[in-house]
């Protein structure tokens, strides 16, 4: 833009905002207030009350095992989202226009929409009942109830949507012309993906993966049905959220606060380490 017209545009904006300042500030204050009450206040209270008790919580062996199972399960599910299904689906949804696309779109959103208890029922029905694949899996000794596989399947079902949506949005931002040019320069579709698409979306993939990872860690509803406890090594281990539920129901609020603060702290630490690692990898700012 011409510097003069830029300056003028700024001036005009400045005048406008002077005129409508007060209502906007009011709306902003109200939304900050609501946001604080809903999110910041409960979180702060949990951390303030629970923080001194974190070392104690983290010295309970059964709780550490619960965190371990939860992290393994969530990581497996995030890997499934990245490699097995999420990335190709995200690419197709971002690039192609086809009949029934809106149907596929809706299907991708189903995990967000239906109650998680029902998702648990669905996983049991699909993989561990007398119907569908159940008898076949049983005949081959594959068990979904109260196993790591069952738990992973349930949380992968629920968390992949987040990954797909984040990656899809970032692929949409890459001009299709860039892919077209790369093709005419001799690159096969796979090479176009690795040389043009991947360098631009890997950060979004990382963001999507950590989002879906965090979503899996948080899951409780579906796990109540599929894997209330998980046979891990030789032990029966509760997933972290079930563990906290048990401590609340069985012992009481103070006990639950202790473990809740510890889980939140562990997640935050992992989150921050992950972010730092991602930001170290390559200097480009290709956030989706």
């Amino acid at each position, binding site marked *: 833009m011409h510097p003069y017209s830029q300056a003028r545009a700024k001036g005009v904006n400045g005048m406008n905002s002077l005129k409508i300042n007060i209502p906007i500030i009011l709306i902003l204050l109200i939304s900050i207030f609501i946001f604080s009450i809903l999110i910041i206040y409960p979180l702060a209270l949990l951390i303030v009350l629970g923080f001194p008790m974190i070392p104690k919580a983290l010295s309970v062996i059964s709780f550490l095992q619960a965190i371990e199972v939860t992290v393994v399960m969530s990581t497996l599910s995030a890997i499934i989202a990245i490699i097995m299904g999420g990335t190709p689906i995200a690419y197709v949804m971002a690039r192609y*226009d086809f009949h029934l696309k809106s149907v596929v779109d809706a299907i991708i959103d189903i995990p967000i929409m239906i109650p998680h208890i029902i998702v648990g029922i669905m996983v049991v029905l699909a993989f561990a009942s007398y119907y569908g694949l159940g008898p076949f899996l049983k005949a081959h000794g594959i068990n979904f109830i109260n196993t790591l596989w069952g738990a992973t399947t349930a949380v992968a079902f629920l968390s992949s949507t987040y990954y797909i949506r984040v990656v899809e949005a970032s692929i949409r931002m890459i*001009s299709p*012309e*860039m892919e*077209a*040019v*790369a*093709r*005419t*320069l*001799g*690159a*096969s579709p796979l*090479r176009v993906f690795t*040389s*043009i698409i991947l*360098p*631009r979306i890997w950060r979004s993939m990382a963001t999507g993966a950590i989002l879906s990872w965090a979503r899996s860690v948080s899951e409780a509803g579906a796990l109540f049905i599929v894997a209330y406890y998980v046979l891990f090594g030789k032990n029966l281990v509760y997933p972290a959220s079930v563990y906290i539920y048990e401590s609340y129901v069985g012992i009481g609020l103070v006990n639950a606060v202790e473990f809740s603060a510890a889980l939140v702290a562990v997640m935050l630490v992992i989150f921050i380490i992950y972010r730092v690692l991602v930001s170290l990898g390559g200097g*480009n700012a*290709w956030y989706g």
Partner: protein
Amino acid sequence: MPGMVELRSVVVRLRYFTLGPISTAFDRETYNVILGPTGSGKSTLLKTIAGIYRVSEGSVVIDGIDVSREPPETRNVSYVPQGYAIFDHMTVYENIEYGLRFKGIPKPERRRLIMEIAKDLGIDYLLSRRAVNLSGGEQQRVALARALVIKPKVLLLDEPLSMLDRETRDRIILMLRELPKKYGITVIHVTHDWDEAYSLADRVYIMNEGRIIEEGEPEQVFNRPRSVFTARFLGFQNIIRGSARGGNLVVLNDEVKLSINGEVDGDVYVCIRPEWIRVMVDNGVNLEGQNVLRGGIVNEVIRSRIGFQLLVSVGRVLVLTALSTTAFKPGDRVLLIIPSENIHIIKIDNAASV
């Protein structure tokens, strides 16, 4: 040499648009410009030649070989899109190198080719830079270098000048014009700007609604268009219906008579470029001669880079657009002189594509 790129009844059906049928040819080592308004299908045609869109019917033939079923990477066609699509996560050097990597060329040879083309296009100073924050002209030349370094048979340019300022444009036009001979390639350039087409093209193709409606030498297409659509699109601002009774006299609106070169009969369109009409002050001096229209009154004056565009009413309803270097004012009385060789006639029956 036969036509390098041939389109044989090509039809491409997209969801909201159908291209073609198109049958035409682009000659070897020539500069071809496809001209058409927005939405006429020019870019679709380019992408079809590049292989980004598959043909639904017909075939694309390059050097006698039908490539309709081949993917873009094996067609030996380079494509420079409108926004240049610079790979901005790479350096300029890596951008130019990109295509060479797939040709199995060893690294030292790649380096030599890149240096050569970069020097040619005057971007050697950019090579080690990251391909972000380049100016329009720099992006344009990086995109060209990247497209040319793989020695394609055909270079496809989609609106290559539309994002450049005027000064850069004029410089790049000189460079573009040399491409076919210098690199032995066929250039197909798409634009909606007829000035650009006129200064570059060896051959011009006019597109409208998914078809090529007219093609030919620039002189012929620009001065003697065959259809009213082409005439209007190429700046014939005066297109008036008239009728002739087998002779060299055409009557416009039953009142203004113009004599023309050649003979014509029946209903016609009379097409006159504004710059072909001479405008003089009507000071009553008896100026006789062919096609002198007296009693014109200036209605409106629009200032432009190349003079003053005047809307002049002549007679009861006829309004002509003329270009003058004199700053007339609305209300001035003028006379218009239209040399008969500057009157282009399109017969109504071959103006069907209006």
